[in-house]
């Protein structure tokens, strides 16, 4: 087999697997930087996926994308209302939101598409070839022949970085996450800040769910996010709460997943579970301090 074709295919697969993770992890970075740990992100992605399916079958892929953005923000809004508005425990609230979203999406899906279920044929985004860049050997086809949501995820990254580290808003947001009481003392409206970051993060998670439906499988199935939201939380830790680190960490997870598919498909004797385990091992090492200093935002979860 042609090794160039193989490597290109592998890289393209890694980018595909990374995209939904990157959306969710970027969103989670925003909310964790403001001091909110949102375990509801798994359910938020699922809500985004269903909204994308419903929206796209009604108004096409663009409509689906917008519906997913709104659904993600609404789901995160409910979380914010409880965890920030009513000061409920963040961990428990987040878990409850995810469980509720699993049940609710399943019910709505069956109401909308029938209890027997079937593969839907939802219109999807075709691969978008970027002239010039796509002609780069090996890397070009892998990176620059992807559907639109991939570019959106890549574009969102520097924007989030710029907001967090180059604007007054970002400074206030980070201060809220590090030391809420002090931020309040200098006049930052910390609860508003946290709610805003959480809702914006939910929008990203919704887009992550939409990517699965609109750029990959063209159908919805119950629980189709299959733990990607929780992966995103691990990715934020591995990426050390920094957008660029998070992007790198998401790609590591994507590479590992793509690699285990490739190894199984080629019939390699190495147990594929080893590759599935790798990113988690890295996360543990990161938490243990092996990848340099790791410190969570000071007021995270409070």
């Amino acid at each position, binding site marked *: 087999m042609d090794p160039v074709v193989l490597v290109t295919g592998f890289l393209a*697969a890694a980018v595909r697997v990374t995209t939904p993770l990157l959306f969710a992890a970027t969103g989670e970075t925003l909310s964790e930087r403001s001091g909110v740990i949102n375990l509801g992100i798994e359910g938020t992605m699922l809500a985004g996926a269903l909204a994308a399916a419903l929206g796209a079958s009604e108004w096409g892929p663009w409509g689906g994308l917008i519906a997913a953005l709104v659904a993600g923000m609404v789901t995160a809004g409910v979380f914010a209302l409880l965890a920030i508005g009513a000061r409920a425990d963040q961990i428990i609230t987040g878990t409850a939101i995810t469980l509720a979203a699993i049940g609710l999406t399943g019910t709505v899906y*069956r109401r909308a*598409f029938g209890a027997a279920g079937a593969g839907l044929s939802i219109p999807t985004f075709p691969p978008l070839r970027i002239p010039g860049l796509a002609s780069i050997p090996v890397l070009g086809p892998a990176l620059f022949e992807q559907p639109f949501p991939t570019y959106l995820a890549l574009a969102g990254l520097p924007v989030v970085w710029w907001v967090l580290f180059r604007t007054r808003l970002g400074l206030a947001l980070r201060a809220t996450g590090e030391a809420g009481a002090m931020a309040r003392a200098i006049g930052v409206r910390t609860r508003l800040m946290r709610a805003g970051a959480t809702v914006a993060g939910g929008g990203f998670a919704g887009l992550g769910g939409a990517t699965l439906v609109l750029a990959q499988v063209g*159908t919805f199935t*119950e629980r189709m996010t*299959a733990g990607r939201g929780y992966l995103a939380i691990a990715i934020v830790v591995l990426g050390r709460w920094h957008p660029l680190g998070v992007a790198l960490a998401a790609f590591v997870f994507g590479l590992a*997943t793509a690699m285990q598919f*490739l190894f199984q498909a080629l019939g390699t004797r190495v147990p594929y579970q080893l590759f599935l385990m790798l990113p988690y091992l890295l996360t543990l090492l990161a938490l243990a301090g092996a990848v340099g200093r790791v410190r969570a935002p000071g007021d995270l979860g409070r």
Partner: protein
Amino acid sequence: MQFIAPALRNTLLKASWQYAVLMLVLLSCARQDTNRSGSSFRVGLVVPGSVADAAWNSGAYAGLQRIRDSLGLATSHIEARTPTEQIEALRTYAAQGYDLVFAHGFEFQDPAERVSATYPRTAFVVTSGRRAHGNVSPLIFRLEEASYLAGMVAGSLTRTGVLGFVGGIELPPIVAGYQGWVNGAKAMNPRVRTQSVYLNSFDDVAAGREAALALIGAGADMFHHNADAAALGLFQAVKEKRGVYVFGANADQSHLAPGHVLGSAVIDLPRAFLFIAAEIRKGNFTPRVEVFGLKSGVVRYVAASALDSLVPVKVKARMAAAADSISSGKLVAAPRPASMQASALGT
């Protein structure tokens, strides 16, 4: 004592409150499909995934509906994914005095035996189970016999000589199906190479697509699967590539990727469910191992009519001959691993 009592009372109140909520949740999970008056015989179904998966679980649900409509019995079902939920669901039905409970999958054998020990009145039927024990009876489906026929088509039509298989979790019945498909293909074309990818999930449809794309990258042009809802990703991947074909599993799936599905290895679950429920309803049933293969008509290979012209007449003749040999026991589609051997009470 006075100081402790209020605290204790509080704890107890809290505990009973939590218990009530838990019970409420469990009860609300069980969906009462009908509650016909006049019939006291009740049938429950516990499925390990969504009944909207267009395959294994939706087939069981259709079987339950057939029982309700044909026999006029009261039915209900619960979706339970984790082992703890599964045994709790079985116990819930048994404790409510259900007469017959279908436990839909290989993984239910041990939980059913354990619950049956406490509730001997309830008859448990474990689909894809492995042995009869107490009031627990397995239904064994030799899906690999139909997969063997699918493999014969794949082996004779493949251009690249590489066959791909996408599995949910590496459970013995799924491995047997894969083996049957491989053996069928090798019977027609000894040089074919076969590759399987397991997802560790029956829900992750995006992983199903990635697995298929990786296999296509490795040269596969014929696919078979056993991954329930996650397999929808495989059908999506196949739809996008010309000259790549897929064989459905558990249900007739030719509508999932029109023009790309050559046929399906089908289990007629409603027929099997109705057969066993009717017998248990009559009351003269003794627990036993019930095996369904090609011979029974419950397991069969269904060719997709749209692509039937692609399959040469000579291949069809050999398939008919192979089906006869399998039915008469002269040909074994796939040897069953020791963990699946039915230890006999009834056979």
